[in-house]
């Protein structure tokens, strides 16, 4: 077991930031912590790293209790923070060397690791640049390089793709998968469900300081009723009778908003065909049609009654 969090409670006055949080992370996982802003993800990370005192609970990393003086455990951890935490006065190379040097004292080994880290995130051409001269995407890559240069066993990434362009985001996500393939266990927090779905082997969905659901991407989607998400553009909606659609088997909900018809159905084969047949029979003209499996947003919506991005 890499991480074991048991009944973790953190209060800020009357506000309960973490409410008896329980988590377990296995070796080799990319573990996603998904939740809206303010759900307690960063607080959990700060408690995990002993950067924040907590009121109750136990935290073990590599089967050893975690505390501020647990330097042997800290040696095995890499941290990529939500905000870019680098020195504006140092160059790209000097920044990575500084943070790597907090873990690795051997100069020669460090030089090699810094080069590898720059290579890994693709900022070798900018080694002499100061952070102020880097674009947002490059800055994020530097932030990652500073956290992973010492090749840690456990990498904690707190929303590393916030405010990053799509190209850099894809590059970062690919990098994370490469790190995992190289043997690192990764904890990845985000409020972007697509990212979590894309790279995480196991996911915990958090809300109000609690884990409300956890499991693999597929298993999480199985715990909700929604099995299919159908969207149809209706060009003459005045002829449409929603009750007729609701009467079909497996249909959970039908909603018409303007010309957009949204249908949620439970798992089952051929949910879409009978609906399209009905529309054709009633001379209803249709535009675009989409049929998608449920997303983690649907999971969150069904459990909490609110959108993940609210």
């Amino acid at each position, binding site marked *: 077991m890499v991480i074991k969090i048991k009944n973790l409670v953190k209060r800020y006055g009357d506000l309960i930031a973490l409410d008896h949080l329980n988590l377990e992370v296995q070796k080799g996982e990319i573990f996603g912590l998904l939740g809206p802003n303010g759900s307690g993800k960063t607080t959990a990370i700060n408690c995990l790293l002993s950067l924040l005192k907590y009121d109750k609970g136990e935290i073990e990393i590599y089967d050893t209790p975690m505390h501020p003086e647990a330097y042997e455990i800290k040696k095995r*951890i890499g941290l990529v923070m939500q905000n870019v935490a680098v020195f504006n006065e140092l160059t790209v190379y000097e920044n990575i060397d500084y943070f790597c040097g907090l*873990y690795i004292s051997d100069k020669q080994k460090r030089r090699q690791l810094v080069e590898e880290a720059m290579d890994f995130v693709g900022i070798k051409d900018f080694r002499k640049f100061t952070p102020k001269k880097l674009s947002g995407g490059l800055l994020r890559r530097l932030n990652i390089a500073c956290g992973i240069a010492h090749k840690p066993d456990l990498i904690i990434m707190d929303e590393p793709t916030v405010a990053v362009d799509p190209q850099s985001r894809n590059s970062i996500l690919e990098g994370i998968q490469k790190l995992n393939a190289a043997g690192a266990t990764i904890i990845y927090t985000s409020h972007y469900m697509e990212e979590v779905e894309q790279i995480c082997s196991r996911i915990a969905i958090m809300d109000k300081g609690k884990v409300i659901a956890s499991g693999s991407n597929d298993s999480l989607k199985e715990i909700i009723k929604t099995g299919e998400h159908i969207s149809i553009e209706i060009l003459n909606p005045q002829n449409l009778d929603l009750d007729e659609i609701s009467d079909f088997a497996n249909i959970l909900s039908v909603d018409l908003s303007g010309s957009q018809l949204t249908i949620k159905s439970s798992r089952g084969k051929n949910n879409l065909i009978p609906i399209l047949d009905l529309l054709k029979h009633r001379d209803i003209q249709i535009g675009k049609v989409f049929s998608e499996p449920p997303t983690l947003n649907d999971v969150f919506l069904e459990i909490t009654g609110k959108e993940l991005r609210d």
Partner: protein
Amino acid sequence: MQVYKAFFKIILKNRMQISIYLIVFIVLAVAFTASYTSPVSTDFTESKINIALINEDEDSVFLDGFIAYLTVNANLVNLPDDPQSLQDALFFQEVDYILRIPDGFSQDFLAGQTVSLEKTAAPNSTSATFMDLRINQYLNTAQTYLNYGNVVSQYELVSSLQNDFSNSSSVTLNSHTDESDSAEKMAYYYNFMAYSLFAILILGVCAVMLVFNDSDIKKRNFASPLKTLNYNSQLVLGSLSFAVLAWLLMVALSFIINSDFMFSEKGLLLILNSFVFTMSALSISFFISNLVKSRSAMSAVANVFALGTSFISGVFVEQVYLGDTVLSIASFTPTYWYVKANNAITSASSLSGSTLTDILTWIALVLGFGIAILGVTLVLLKNRKVEAR
């Protein structure tokens, strides 16, 4: 030593701002010490006073000799013998002394009788006293010749007197002006150092601490295996190194300006005092760096604090010219005691006894300020750490 190295890299990035204070200090200190002139006169020029002579006596060889003597020792001004003209000349300082030689003066003097000369001069005039001495000296010497010498004629008497008074003495002023000049120059230099050191240390230490106190950088450092004690020690060592480097640079310059004085006992005491002050200023800079939250605030505090304490403590204007209230307020800053000690060191005729005790007490006070403020800073940091976690 990652933190220590980063400390100096950050200092180097701020070198322009810090250098400005150093350059201003060097230029001003060198310019002031080079152009310094002592208020004490160091040369001697013989001068003569203006006198008006009214002669009512009959001509004689002795009288001619006496008038010739007066001509050598004073500037004779011709004035009409009327009371109004004479008083006006005295009032308007055309003459400093009016001498009237009465009728029968020479004859009575040579006969050994008691004689008197009439004089008019401004009250308490030193020039008049000087002239009195000169005239008495001439007449007393003549009297001595007449009483005890083998003088047979007025020619011989006048000749002897001329011979005696023709001897002149060369004047050499023996004083400590060279040494006191150096001391005053160095007092000015070391007093001015207080301003520059304060500004440089506040700017340097604040610039670094602003970066290391950034919450994200702090978190990243504390998440690493770097022990807190090690981290703090590297920051303290960096601050100390920076302060000592700045101090050494300024002290080295004082040796270039006047190495003879700096190798003296007084010079070494100035160095000790400035070192203790540097430590105290560092402690205050460290305190300020934990209060300041932005770079603009950092520059403002550096200017206001360094200039303010320097003004009220006698760095730019001597303490004797400052009011009691100002000095009372200044006594709550280490700069005041530092300047006081500098002035005492350089003005002391000898460094022993109570003078030395006073100087060492003031140096100890400067050190006390440093220790007290460091203590307050540590308590502040401890409370903040507890609040943060």
